[in-house]
């Protein structure tokens, strides 16, 4: 077998050139520049390559509502737990297991005897349902990328014992909310390349027009992120509101028409609560009436009504997940961060998910957005 000798887009010399351009851009602004990315994978890549340690000290790159697990609302998890408590078998992506609802997590429910199984792909849900004579509930979570997978399986006319509990979210709606926040300092968005591969970058044009903020679509290799940030910061400083595709090898203006068609055929936009942030208009993806027979929220409507009355957890008031997800705080601003709230005993959802800002910062030893203290000599 032949392998490429080196992976592209990880060339440090090119990275340094981009870092210098970023520095020059921020220097030219002569003030603090704040931008937001909306993707856990971007934060992971930044942490993995130590990108934050070489950002200009006057550049703030906030992580917005980009962790699908984190923004799944506690009552949505409670709804799933309620179905499991009723004796139904529940299938979930692994990341959701330990996210606390208002009283319990799915992992707690499993430990108490509920039938909760982890799946890695939506297609597994259909397979499991086919092999089962009883109802199987698929807790369908995530953004555009996983929503397409859910849509695809529903379009294949799965067995009716497959019941889909959709908690899918639509990211552009949350970007609208951040952009519309009166005291928002966000001067531009770095959009997630993989989601844009489905939706197309044209999707962001109305947002850019409405809020006069630039959006740059970026990939996930270190050079992709740096190139995207350079583009974004230059646009923000020059007050140029436009969409730029900095990930052209994967993203087009119109996206993936087949995937988009599937998404629109199966889901419609509806208002929904994003954990810790707000009720977001058109923020949730709900199953269309044509798919009612697979819609767990209708099939089990009576059970789910009881979920609304659960009390809040006592610590919820100290947790700053909401402020972190909406870009008003950073993980290190939270007094629980790394203390009461740690990956092995998380308080907030942001410390649970591998895409959560708190978890990523904790695991990579980040404790503030400013330049990390370097050890040893600086690179030439």
């Amino acid at each position, binding site marked *: 077998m032949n392998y490429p000798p080196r992976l592209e887009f990880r060339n440090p010399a090119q990275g340094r050139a981009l870092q210098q351009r970023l520095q020059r851009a921020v220097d030219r602004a002569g003030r603090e520049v704040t931008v937001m990315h909306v993707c856990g994978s971007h934060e992971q890549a930044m942490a993995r390559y*130590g*990108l934050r*340690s070489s950002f200009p000290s006057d550049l703030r790159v906030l992580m917005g509502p980009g962790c699908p697990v984190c923004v799944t609302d506690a009552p949505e998890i409670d709804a799933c737990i309620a179905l499991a408590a009723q004796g139904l078998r529940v299938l979930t992506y692994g990341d959701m297991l330990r996210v606390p609802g208002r009283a319990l997590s799915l992992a707690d429910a499993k430990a108490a005897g509920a039938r909760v199984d982890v799946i890695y792909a939506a297609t597994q849900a259909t397979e499991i349902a086919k092999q089962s004579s009883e109802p199987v509930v698929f807790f369908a979570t995530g953004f555009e990328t996983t929503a397409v997978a859910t849509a695809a399986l529903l379009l294949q006319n799965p067995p009716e014992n497959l019941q889909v509990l959709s908690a899918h979210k639509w990211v552009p709606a949350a970007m609208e909310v951040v952009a519309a926040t009166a005291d928002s300092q966000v001067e531009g968005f770095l959009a997630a390349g993989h989601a844009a591969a489905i939706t197309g970058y044209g999707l962001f044009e109305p947002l850019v027009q409405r809020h006069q903020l630039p959006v740059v679509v970026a990939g996930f290799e270190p050079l992709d992120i740096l190139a995207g940030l350079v583009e974004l910061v230059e646009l923000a400083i020059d007050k140029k509101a436009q969409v730029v595709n900095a990930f052209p090898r994967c993203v087009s203006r119109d996206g993936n028409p087949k995937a988009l068609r599937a998404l629109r055929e199966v889901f419609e936009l509806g208002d929904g609560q994003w954990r810790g942030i707000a009720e977001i208009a058109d923020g949730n993806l709900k199953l269309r009436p044509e798919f009612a027979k697979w819609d767990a929220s209708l099939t089990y409507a009576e059970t789910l009504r009881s979920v609304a009355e659960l009390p809040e957890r006592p610590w919820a008031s100290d947790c700053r997940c909401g402020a972190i997800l909406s870009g008003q705080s950073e993980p290190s601003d939270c007094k629980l961060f790394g203390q009461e709230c740690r990956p092995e005993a998380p308080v907030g959802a942001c410390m649970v998910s591998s895409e959560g800002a708190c978890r990523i910062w904790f695991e*990579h*030893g*980040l404790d503030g957005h400013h330049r990390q203290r*370097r*050890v040893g000599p600086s*690179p030439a």
Partner: protein
Amino acid sequence: MKTPFADQFIAAKHGAGGPAMRALIGSVFLADVEDSEVLAMDDGAAIPFGDQWLVVTTDAHVVHPVFFPGGDIGRLSVCGVVNDLAMMGACDVLALTSSVILEEGFSIELLRRIHASTQQACREAGAKILAGDTKVMGRGEVDQIVLSTTGIGVTRRVIRGGGLQPGDAVVITGTLGDHGLAVLSARHSLGLQGDLLSDVAPLNGLIRQVLLAGGAGIHALKDPTRGGVTAALSEMAERAGVAIVLQQQALPMSDAGRAASELLGIDPLSVANEGKALIGVHPDQLQAVLQALHSHPLGQAAAHIGQVHASEKPALLIDTGFGQRRLFEKDAEPLPRIC
């Protein structure tokens, strides 16, 4: 922040070589120990022996699958112990003992193959198994085979994992992560097996050359087994009270290993090796040591991967070429039962 030991039951993490395992050992095996020699908790024990040191170490092996690309549990059981001795400077192996626990129904033909591989590894290491024990347990009471090996060696100078000094260069003797990635790809039939082989090998011959070339400049040795390079260097930094900065670009990897780790999203720095050593060496002896490594068949891909710095707090960092980040040991071993 030291957290009290709250766990009630043994979990997989307690055998992963990371913080949870050390916490378990500290809270159970060393709970009532005050003897500093016992508390040293190194890979082996060093006992004064005339003008030399007798080094003793022991290791149990539970790998799944029992045969993996590039090796098997028999070869592993010899190399694990021989390498632990070598990491303390004891390159001459006086004796090995081996205990085998077999599951009822295990194939005697497979046992012969494992034994042949054990003997081959002994020949490579210049070691002999001089005592042994055999037990059989009922079906389901043990998974196929467990091999437990003890080794005795001698050395004039005991080398410790925690002997790093500021200014030292950190060297690895070859490519990263091959053992863990090969075992994982065998387990999950990734189709990379042809190219991806475990590195399991006895290192005493290689380390003998390193010690000849580096002399007193060799400050620290450790084999990055469970938890990989991250766990080994974190512990070395912790014990020496220093900071280590690795250079990502300098890390040697096989093409197949790189492909597998990208494909699986597994950090090769946290994956087990069974035929690699980390060496802390004074900069004056660095070139001689690299030369010695490169002229040995097991050291062809050896590389200078990092630098030791004085630091208020122990730390392990990596310079990715784009910036620096800290590396942390994780309790969640990506692959249980690999050695």
